[in-house]
């Protein structure tokens, strides 16, 4: 048997074992993840359904936009798959301990490359279940089609996922092998950033100047719609192929499907050859690449050493955590993607005309935005803040022996996490309320809510992280998947809902004049007090319990 097939068989065994281990997972965790996935699928299906229903009600031109929206949807999905393929491909080809071990075994590099390619494609296929299924099901129900449409789409998704994931691996391979490093990389990055900002500014200007209420010019409002509709792009084949089913044009549908399949075949043949040729040298470049930081590259380090304020121990952890964050792409890319997407959306609120909807609607959108922002803050604090206390136990020989208590370390970590989340949360919240032109009351609630949210989420994650501290060396993923990590995620989500929903309702009722003038006088300060008290409680209790746990434990 070829080494490639042996590796695949071994991977299948591993997956089977992992499925078996599901039974040993905490029930709370399984129930939470299962429930969350179900809610996600149902929630997204409902949103898509309402969207298609809206277009259906408008009829005519509005419903005629569906093919364009499909092409845009699949373009976005394709780009996400490409990014996912590049990231998972990089991890599978260059980073995992498995690759390092296999390199010492008699496995040809070619087989190793094929194996990593297949794994990356499989790992990128999540998009089908969590995004395509709700979209296609909703469209099918709205348009009166049965489960056949979903099955048809599932068949289409296989070559589509392979195509974009393969493209991601292709681009990643070129970057790893030939992309310049150091100063040139910085220069190229800066140029790209300037170009992107210039393009975004021009784009917003262009859209603002062509604003109209006519549905026909929707094409001008939605970024990338014109590009997505190009018939030479695979997303167009995917959209038209699926829609051919709803028009009873099976021949056209099969033609598009075969077009996708043949493209995948060509790409994978090309990738196989490229992998044989490029992968070994790219691998050598990765293994032997120097990480000697030159003076320019370590300028961030020197700047932080010079400028970071605070007492010595706060500086120590602040600088250390900032440097590790900046040098770990898995950390900063997640922040950049989530907060960057929200930022782009908030900047474009004016272009979408949401600021012209009146105070009541603007207020609702502002609170929905605060909820989205808080939900992202909650997931990032659960992912990055919760494991921090456990991760520091690896360096107990130094950190644990320093002349301060572990509780002080916990407070420092809490302070740093709160500060980081507050800065991002307040900036984006202010951007959202500014673009929406909301009332002063709503803006003030936002200004109090975001730092309070940062306090609540950081306090909860750090406090629970201290209570459920893992002293034995574990990866962040292992720490997160335990009971403490799951509990933290649930409690964070509950806190987000309680902190945003009540003030949101109060603010909405105030704008609808549902309160008497006497009531209005005290209900607003009470709302602010509610936010502060709840956030202090949500942070304070876990921190206090964490402090007690740290004092009484052995390391």
């Amino acid at each position: 048997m070829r080494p490639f097939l042996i590796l695949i068989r071994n991977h299948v065994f591993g997956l089977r074992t992992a499925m078996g281990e599901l039974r040993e997972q905490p029930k709370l965790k399984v129930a939470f993840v299962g429930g969350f996935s179900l809610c996600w699928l149902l929630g997204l299906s409902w949103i898509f359904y309402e969207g298609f229903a809206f277009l259906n009600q408008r009829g005519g031109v509005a419903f005629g936009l569906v093919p364009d929206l499909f092409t845009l949807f699949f373009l976005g999905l394709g780009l996400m798959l490409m990014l996912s393929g590049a990231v998972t491909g990089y991890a599978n080809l260059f980073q995992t301990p498995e690759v390092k071990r296999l390199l010492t075994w008699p496995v040809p590099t070619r087989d190793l490359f094929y194996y990593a390619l297949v794994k990356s494609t499989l790992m990128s296929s999540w998009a089908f279940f969590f995004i395509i299924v709700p979209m296609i099901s909703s469209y099918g129900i709205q348009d009166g089609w049965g489960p056949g449409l979903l099955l048809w789409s599932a068949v289409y998704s296989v070559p589509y996922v392979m195509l974009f994931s393969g493209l991601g691996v292709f681009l990643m391979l070129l970057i790893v092998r030939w992309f310049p490093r150091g100063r040139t990389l910085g220069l190229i990055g800066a140029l790209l950033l300037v170009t992107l900002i210039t393009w975004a500014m021009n784009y917003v200007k262009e859209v603002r100047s062509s604003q109209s209420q006519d549905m026909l010019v929707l094409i001008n409002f939605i970024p990338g719609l014109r590009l997505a509709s190009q018939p030479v792009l695979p997303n167009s084949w995917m959209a038209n192929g699926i829609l051919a089913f709803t028009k009873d044009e099976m021949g056209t549908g099969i033609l598009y499907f075969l077009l996708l399949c043949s493209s995948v075949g060509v790409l994978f043949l090309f990738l196989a050859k490229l992998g044989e040729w490029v992968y070994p040298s790219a691998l050598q470049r990765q293994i032997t690449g120097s990480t000697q930081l030159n003076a320019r590259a370590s300028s961030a380090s020197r700047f932080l050493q010079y400028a970071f304020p605070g007492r010595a121990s706060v500086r120590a952890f602040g600088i250390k955590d900032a440097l590790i964050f900046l040098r770990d792409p898995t950390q900063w890319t997640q922040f950049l993607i989530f907060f960057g997407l929200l930022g782009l959306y908030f900047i474009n609120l004016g272009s979408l005309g949401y600021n012209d909807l009146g105070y009541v609607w603007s207020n609702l959108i502002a609170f929905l935005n605060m909820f989205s922002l808080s939900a992202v803050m909650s997931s990032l604090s659960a992912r990055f803040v919760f494991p921090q206390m456990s991760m520091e136990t690896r360096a107990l020989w130094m950190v644990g022996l320093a002349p301060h208590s572990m509780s002080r370390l916990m407070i420092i970590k809490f302070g740093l996490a709160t500060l980081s989340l507050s800065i991002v949360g307040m900036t984006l919240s202010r951007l959202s309320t500014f673009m929406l032109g909301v009332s002063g009351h709503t803006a003030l609630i936002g200004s109090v809510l975001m730092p309070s949210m940062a306090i609540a989420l950081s306090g909860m994650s750090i406090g629970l992280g201290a209570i459920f501290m893992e002293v034995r060396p574990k990866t962040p993923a292992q720490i997160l998947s335990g009971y403490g990590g799951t509990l933290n995620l649930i409690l964070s989500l509950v806190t987000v809902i309680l902190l945003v929903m009540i003030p949101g309702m109060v603010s909405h009722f105030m704008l609808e004049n549902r309160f008497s003038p006497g009531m209005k006088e005290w209900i607003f300060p009470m709302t602010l007090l509610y936010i502060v008290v709840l956030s202090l409680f949500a942070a304070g209790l876990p921190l206090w319990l964490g402090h007690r746990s740290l004092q009484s434990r052995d390391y």
Partner: protein
Amino acid sequence: MIRLEHLHKRYGSLQAVDDLNLEVPEGELFCFLGPNGAGKTTSIKMMTGLVRPDQGTITLAGINALEEPVRSRSQVGYIPDMPFLYDRLTPMEFLLFTGDLYRMPRKEVPEKAEEMLETFGMLERAHTLCRDLSHGMRQRVIYAATLMHRPKVMLVDEPFIGLDPHSIRLIKDLLREHTRNGMTILMTTHILAIAEEIGDRIGIIDRGKLVVCGTLEELKAATPGSARLEDLFLSLTLQ
């Protein structure tokens, strides 16, 4: 100096340390020997404050480590057998982190860090990420970081694992030099030849109890028929 009095520690049904009494005077290099699981690392962890004893007192550099743990820790340096370094920091950044952590004067830290890296022959690698350093180089960074704040007591757990002869020599010379300058060092090792070579006194612990303690000559005199430390060690711990 180090003084341990009636130290006890139990993990469930296992008596890890049983009535340990030990005194190491200032400027002495004490070698703490014992088979695996004898209680060496637990004893060291109790001295560092990472593990709390069930009973007994610990005095380090004249400070009661159980009553004043923070003040005591400022006088202690600890090097475990498998120390962790932050992979995405450079040795220079790690030393600056250590300096801040031990509240050293801000202006003094960069200069001291550079001096320590030079002492350990790591100046050329000062700006290389720790993940790309060899085991020996990482060990040198760890010694440099531990000695940055000039501790009066140093606890070293298995300092010579995986080191090349140059690094072993460097560390042996360093330990000797620091004891001459008044530092008290308690070191565990399984390399008996090194204990013979550099230890001022040797203690052997087995099943949580200190079985024997003294200079090499005293131990040999007390155990007739044991010409070498190895024979002595085996005869005392092979039951």
